[in-house]
């Protein structure tokens, strides 16, 4: 993705969390950031071959990094391919995404990892980083070849979608992963605790007669995994934290110096189980939408950095799979193209500063998985996102880039819109091309 062209992004409000927050020009040379300074334009006026991108009135920030997506390739290409998923990513401002291994076959091998990387390179949109399986076939029994997966390019391991129920297997996985300094992600759910459960267990599930998933389903596994991280010294990443208790345990674990990081999904701080009332299968995901007190706890967790990052858990499903009875529809919603405006709403309401919100989409996720992105310091790959913070738009599912349409935010008016996305100095998304 490198090119010889020099690009100067002028006059934007640049936020590179921890490094820059103010109006500046950004110079890109040979696909890398070479300078972030005010008034670079006047200094460079005589230089030939500089393409100017006018970013006046726009936010210029590092490209977003999503540690949790499901691109359904290989195996479920009718839901999403790596090409359509990465097109959705860059349309949502994401330049790096980490894809979970619950494909078919499960990504528990070098060949599947290499296939994903090859498909991502061919798509030429976002950077795609595979996450390898913890156990062979994600069956929770024998360790996958984690060393080989690391060598092939996996940036973390997880059996996402299913928990590793056997605590000894989880202990061994965590111990083993420390040899490669790989983060271990466990889908925290005691699957025996909520047989048939398909929404939060509470007042709404009681009224609707839908089998419930109590908060304890998540919390008992969060507690176990924190205990195992303490035992093994392994890096533990808690995905899609959805309950008060999980936030509290993550906070306490961090205070005690256990190497725990945590993520929250936009739907978990934007919606509650009330969204399920009309048996809306696009409000069905796992972990489920919880209650007001959980939403509040997640916001507090984001505020005090108990929750390090925002991740989408982008989980595409075909229309015919979601047009089913509530209990028969699959879990999951798409999120890449709505994540930024939903996160920006936390800024609008005063929960986060704009720089904090951007950090949770850029610098922080890059830190959690040791990715050399999420920043604009000179020398790094020029992955940037240009955003019109004041643009409002209505979510029209027909115009999303994802192959699937399963979002509970259809018809919502969103504030904040991605205008242009660069990966390695190349424009991979330009809203003007669509207009």
């Amino acid at each position, binding site marked *: 993705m490198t090119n010889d062209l020099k690009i100067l992004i002028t006059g934007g409000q640049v936020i590179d969390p921890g490094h820059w927050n103010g109006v500046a020009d950004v110079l890109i040379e040979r696909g890398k950031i070479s300078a972030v300074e005010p008034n670079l334009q006047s200094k460079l006026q005589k230089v030939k071959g500089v393409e100017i991108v006018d970013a006046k009135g726009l936010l210029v920030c590092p490209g977003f990094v999503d540690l949790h997506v499901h691109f359904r390739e290989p195996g479920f290409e009718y839901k999403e391919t790596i090409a359509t998923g990465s097109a959705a990513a860059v349309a949502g401002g994401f330049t790096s995404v980490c894809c979970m291994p619950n494909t078919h076959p499960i990504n528990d091998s070098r060949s599947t990892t290499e296939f994903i990387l090859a498909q991502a390179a061919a798509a030429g949109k976002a950077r795609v980083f595979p996450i390898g399986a913890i156990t062979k076939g994600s069956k929770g029994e024998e360790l996958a070849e984690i060393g080989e997966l690391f060598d092939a390019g996996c940036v973390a391991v997880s059996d996402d979608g299913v928990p590793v129920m056997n605590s000894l297997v989880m202990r061994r996985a965590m111990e083993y992963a420390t040899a490669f300094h790989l983060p271990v992600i466990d889908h925290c759910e005691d699957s025996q605790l909520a047989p048939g459960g398909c929404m939060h267990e509470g007042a709404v599930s009681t009224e609707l007669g839908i089998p419930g998933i109590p908060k304890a389903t998540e919390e008992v596994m969060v507690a176990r995994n924190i205990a195992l991280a303490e035992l093994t010294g392994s890096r533990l990443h808690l995905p899609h934290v959805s309950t008060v208790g999980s936030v509290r345990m993550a906070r306490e674990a961090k205070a005690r110096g256990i190497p725990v990081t945590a993520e929250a999904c936009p739907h978990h701080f934007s919606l509650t189980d009330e969204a399920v009332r009309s048996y809306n299968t696009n409000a069905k995901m796992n972990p489920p939408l919880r209650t007001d007190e959980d939403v509040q706890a997640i916001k507090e967790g984001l505020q005090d950095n108990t929750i390090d990052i925002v991740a989408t858990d982008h989980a595409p499903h075909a229309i015919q799979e979601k047009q089913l*009875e*509530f*209990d028969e529809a699959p879990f999951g919603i798409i999120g890449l193209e709505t994540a930024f405006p939903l996160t920006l709403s936390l800024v609008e309401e005063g929960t986060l500063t704009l720089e904090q919100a951007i950090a949770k989409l850029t610098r922080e996720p890059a830190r959690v998985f040791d990715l050399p992105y999420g920043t604009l310091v000179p020398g790094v790959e020029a992955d940037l996102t240009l955003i019109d913070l004041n643009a409002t738009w209505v979510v029209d599912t027909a115009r999303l880039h994802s192959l699937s349409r399963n979002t509970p935010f259809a018809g919502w008016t969103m504030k904040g819109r991605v205008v242009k996305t660069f990966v390695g100095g190349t424009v991979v998304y330009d809203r003007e091309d669509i207009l």
Partner: protein
Amino acid sequence: MSFKRKDLLGLASLSQEEMALILDAAEPFKEVSGREIKKVPALRGKTVINLFFEPSTRTRTSFELAAKRLSADVVNFSPSSSSVMKGETLLDTARNIEFMQADILVLRHSSAGAAEILARNSRLSVINAGDGWHEHPTQALSDLLTIQEKKGQVRDLHVAIVGDVAHSRVARSNIYALTKMGANVRVVGPPTMIPLCLHRLGVTVYHDFDEAISGVDVVIMLRLQLERQGRSLFPSIREYARLYGLTAERVQRAAKDVLVMHPGPVNRGVEIAHDVVDGNAAVILEQVANGVAVRMGLMYLLSQRN
């Protein structure tokens, strides 16, 4: 006031007036079922489809008789499995029925919300004949009619609903029906069978049956799903029957003229003792008779919509 709805999906969204309207419509049809020629032409030329995804004999038969006594053409359609298993979605099945120009679709389904999803996507009048653990509105309306007939009114009566409330659509519909009509509702069962936040539906929760039954005017026993044993909801049928079975001795603790109700089918000797089923307080068979009348009244109202 007239009944303006296209469908009957549940009682949670129905007003007291709407429920009263259905009961008023049912009343005259009781007499029809007692005639030698049990038929009126109210739904002549209309088509009613009974689409039952769960096995049911009594509810399906009750709907079928109700439709036939109104002179409708009735077709029973009982796919043995859910939509995913049989490869056609519920909505596709419903669209096919819609384009066969049916008028009323009676749906029994194991998924909560199935009737609502279908009604939203179809021009058919949909009657929920039971959806998962959610609602079974015509059963609760039959129960209301029975109570109203025997007691004169429902307001201020003390009613106990006993058993596996968590997994019971009859319980939910009865809770909505009775609380909206002004009854005081107690719910009784082991904590494993009482769903979270149930008190928010305006009921009082008890775990001690002897305490809960004291002085009540009506006892509604729920059928114990025997196959639930072994799923840690209760240790044994023996213990369940001892703690939550309705015995003649327990009936004595209720009000003198208590009504004993059960939606059927009855597990004699489990949730209700043999002699109580056949005793003077039981109105279980009246509930069945009223079930036909309520379904006739409801189908009549839905067919009058246009």
